[in-house]
């Protein structure tokens, strides 16, 4: 029997019906048409499906959709405002820190979570925080630089 789920997604109240065993990733993509969240592995090993659940960074492939009842969710579609990109998004573009771009939504969400929690992360902290976001194109160099640069900008520090 399908389960009714009601939650706040990117600031908006949303309701959907899903199978009880459906993952949050499936529900986001197939029920809510939020396809910005990507599936790279389905086992929590790649981070492409990263979302914020009540502000905590999780892999949406390792959450059951019914678990988000009454909770707040932020996906990659909810990171930018209509007026402007989040600094992490802008810096990723300026640093050319994406090639194919499939890991990018997960990186955006994870990096935002990092900077929310730690406005001044070291390179090492950034690398460990993002260790669950696999990227096969960039070798991570430009991603790490972009996130550190975004952090500096958000702190108001000189670039």
């Amino acid at each position, binding site marked *: 029997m399908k389960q009714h789920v009601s939650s706040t997604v990117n600031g908006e109240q949303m309701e959907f019906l899903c199978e009880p065993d459906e993952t949050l990733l499936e529900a986001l993509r197939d029920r809510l048409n939020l396809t910005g969240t990507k*599936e*790279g592995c389905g086992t929590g090993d790649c981070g492409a499906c990263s979302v914020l659940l009540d502000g905590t960074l999780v892999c949406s492939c390792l959450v059951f959709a019914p678990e988000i009842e009454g909770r707040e969710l932020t996906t990659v579609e909810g990171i930018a405002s209509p007026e402007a*990109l989040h600094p992490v998004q802008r810096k990723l573009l300026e640093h050319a820190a994406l*090639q194919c*771009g499939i890991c990018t939504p997960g990186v955006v969400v994870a990096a935002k979570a990092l900077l929310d929690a730690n406005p001044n992360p070291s390179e090492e902290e950034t*690398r460990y925080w993002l260790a669950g976001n696999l990227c*096969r194109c960039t*070798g991570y160099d430009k991603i790490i630089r972009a996130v550190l640069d975004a952090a500096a900008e958000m702190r108001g520090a000189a670039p």
Partner: protein
Amino acid sequence: MSEAVDFRYIGTRPVRPDGLDKVTGRANFGADFTLPGMLHGRFLRSPHAHARILNIDLEAALAVPGVKAIVTGKDFPEVEPGDIQGGEGAGDYHDLAVNVMARDKVLYHGHAVAAVAATSVRAAEQAIRAIKVEYEVLPAVLDIDSAMAANAPLLHEQLYTEGLPEKPARPSNVAQVMESTRGDIEAGFAEADVIIERTYITPTVHQGYIEPHACVARWGQDEQSLIWCATQGSFDVRSMTARVLGLNVSRLKVIPSEIGGGFGGKTTIYLEPVAIMLSRRSGRPVKLVMTREEVFRASGPASASKIKLKIGARKDGSLTAMYAWLGYEAGAFKGSPMVPGVMCVFAPYDVPAFKAEGYDVLVNKPKVAAYRAPGAPQALFATESAMDELARELGMDPIELRLKNAVRDGSQAAYGPKFNSIGLEACLEAARAHPNYQRPLEPGQGRGVAVGFWFNVGMQSSAEIHVNEDGTATVIEGNPDIGGSRASMALMAAEELCIPYENVRVVVADTESAGFTNVTGGSRVTFATGMAVIEAARDIISQLKQRAAALWNVDEDMVDWVDGKVVPKPGINVEAEPMSLADMAAESAKTGGPLLGRASLNARGAGPAFSVNLCDVAVDPETGKVDVLSFTAIQDAGKAIHPSYVEGQMQGGAVQGIGWALNEEYVYNGDGVMENAGFLDYRIPVASDLPMIDTQILEVPNPGHPYGVRGVGETPIVAPLAAVANAVSAATGLRMTELPLSPPRIVAALEAAKG
């Protein structure tokens, strides 16, 4: 052809045109597409590495609620053998068809046996579990030695080794042999003061793109069918799918989605004919998406290899002879990258005598696919490891040794022609002068040096440029943008047309909207499709001159294109203001209608690309863990159109190579079942494993391109294997010849050395 020019836009680093879509989640990849009424498909795959299919019982599966169609090998037409155009290792159409869906035999664990389309993924999975297959299990061969052994079980009873003087009497698992020689190697080795001889082993590895293969297909009863998919080559999907299904290519429209990585692995097809067949049977669109596990088990990884190498040199370091025996695993169907392996194993060096013999060997594993510079990383792992050992034996600096023997302009390449305008020497000099080569090392640390090389290719490309009425432009091309190529195309169009980069829109069009274009691969897009864009822009400029001549009522040869404007030539007496593209676009209705430039070409002159990598590591002698402390990639790009994306290629290739060197491998059990088919245990590098990857782009212009561009995408993965292994060897004092350099292997070597 190369011109010394001051560029306006080339060499700058603007934001890519598709960037916003990709950081906001708006970009649509392979699995992001849906059609009304769409079904979901799943595969049944072989649980055996080698078996005869005796019977498939679909009755229970067809009874599962929601199931709309099931197909097996019987539903697909017989396909005649024939070479797939598109390059080395691309394979054969018959093999391709049988790889897509097994017929009488399964040839590897994971080989597709049946596929189901149903109203939900769960229903399709339930039906898959309900299919009953009877197999007769056959003995499997899982490595080069056992596949080549006398009386080895055969994968294909009709396969006879090619490349021998006479057709052999008996079938074999060796699909092809090849030999390449120059001079007298016996004499060469006799002259040598030092000889290094080793056997080098590399495992099966995977490209590891993060996006699994995915497609949506809709069969049209009017025989106009649609495929949406993630691919490196939409025209190749069209031709391969048409051939496997026995269709005319005009009946298939392939729309390339955004593509989440490929590295060569998305140059062939796995899903598309099956999706079309399921759609045809069900009358509804069908989506097929591989799981990560299926990607590992059933797409095309890169060849495992076994290479025996022998090199001889005089005391002064000059090479006297080289010999290589190269075995490459093809997987279940012929077509390993053995040929390019044989061609490039000695490519960086000028050696008077050599012999290389190659073997394309079938094993009961998935058919290999291209992976960045196919065949070269394995071959140069051997060569560059041996060169490192030779430098040690001779007491020479490893860069010095390579400089002494490096190919230069005019050197006869081991693979045939003379080199012209290459950057190996420049890369070696840059490496020697690099601060990272001078940094002192601590105990337990080691530094490795290695050279990389790849041929690069040209092939066919088309491009159109439509000039809009306000003087902005739209570029239409057919290469899926896998790493920022839209930005490069826009830069080249902007450069030629002298309009701001932001005024150029680049569209990667479908197979009905773009002219024929070969794959995004072979490091060819910026080079070849870029050349088409430049030519299309020059087509417009020549039209602008004609039209300006008409406007000014002068002869066409009295008009020039200077600084982005048509102007009367000096001395021409006419009252005419210079006119920009925008000015001319505004007048286009009067001068012959919309401005449209076109080019189609079969690009030649793709210059080969050399690189040098430096790698520093620390090895924990108790656990065998290797930490990469620093990594430096130096490469000749000819001309970097968008330097950030060139650096990105160098960094990404370096890290894939580091993964190949240290941890990545398919772990098979004795039955040919891959035991680590997931990102948890197939260990690609993660962010915290790595330092920043230092890059240095050199620009030795390629005379075959108007701006001097040479391909950059593949060379970066070639040198890291040996660079890392040489560093580990330096740190441990032990020559490491088998990849990956996993901790248990290093500890075992250290313990063995202790005795």
